[in-house]
């Protein structure tokens, strides 16, 4: 585990650490846009895993998945920001607690 020569496990450890950073961001921040950024961080961490496995198993499927993850991430960011704008217009702020008003 502590070998200096870079192998698959190094990429996986980095990816896991970044993913957890993203989770923490979603949990502890109150600003909707920063939460969206944390989600982007998590998706990027997953992308690192995909590409690392693709490289070390010599299989292209991982890189294909990265394409789809990027497309979905773009879609998610677009909708998220649109909702942020809508919430901002309603409450003049985009604190995450304003979403409580979405309860029916």
């Amino acid at each position, binding site marked *: 585990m502590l070998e200096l020569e870079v192998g698959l496990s190094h990429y996986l450890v980095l990816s896991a650490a970044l993913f957890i950073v993203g989770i923490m961001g979603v949990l502890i921040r109150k600003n909707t846009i920063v939460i969206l950024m944390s989600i982007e961080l998590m998706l990027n961490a997953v992308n690192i895993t995909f590409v690392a496995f693709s490289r070390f198993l010599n299989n292209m499927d991982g890189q294909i998945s990265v394409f789809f993850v990027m497309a979905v991430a773009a879609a998610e960011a677009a909708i998220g920001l*649109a909702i942020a704008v809508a919430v901002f217009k309603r409450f003049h702020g985009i604190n995450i607690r304003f979403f409580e008003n979405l309860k029916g």
Partner: protein
Amino acid sequence: MSLIDITFYILALTTFFAGVAVIAIPNPVYSALCLAITMIGVAGLFFTLEAYFIAGVQLIVYAGAVVIMFVMVLMLFDLKHEKKAFSKGLFSMILKIGSSAVVLASIFSAIYLTISAKPRLEEVNTDAIVAAKGLALQLFTKNVFAFEVIGILLLVVLVGAIALAKGKGGTHA
């Protein structure tokens, strides 16, 4: 340690600490800038993994995405009054950090237990053009259905985002 290993360590540290900075800095403008550094670092990591095409796409897609976030932050915040950036409550904070640490520890142990024999970087075909052609072939033969679905998803998102953001009383109303 070879040159590529040193590159990896530099990129990994940059990416990780920029990622931590995204969630740790109260000012969202700096969060956005750190996110940009993270994205560039991830693109660099893709370079070290010889996924050149993906690295380029990462730069193109996320550079634009993060710029939009940055602009949104600038437009939607009064930065002088951003005081409460983090959620309140000591107990819940301990709970959140603790549970994250537990998840991290379980992922690390899973990596440690399963990858006993470290796979070496073996010589594979690293010609970027051949790799890009292989990628395109796979994308448009085996995964063409998923590709079409993504196209429809993006169209739906386009319509939805405009419908959500337009509303009454905007600048172009």
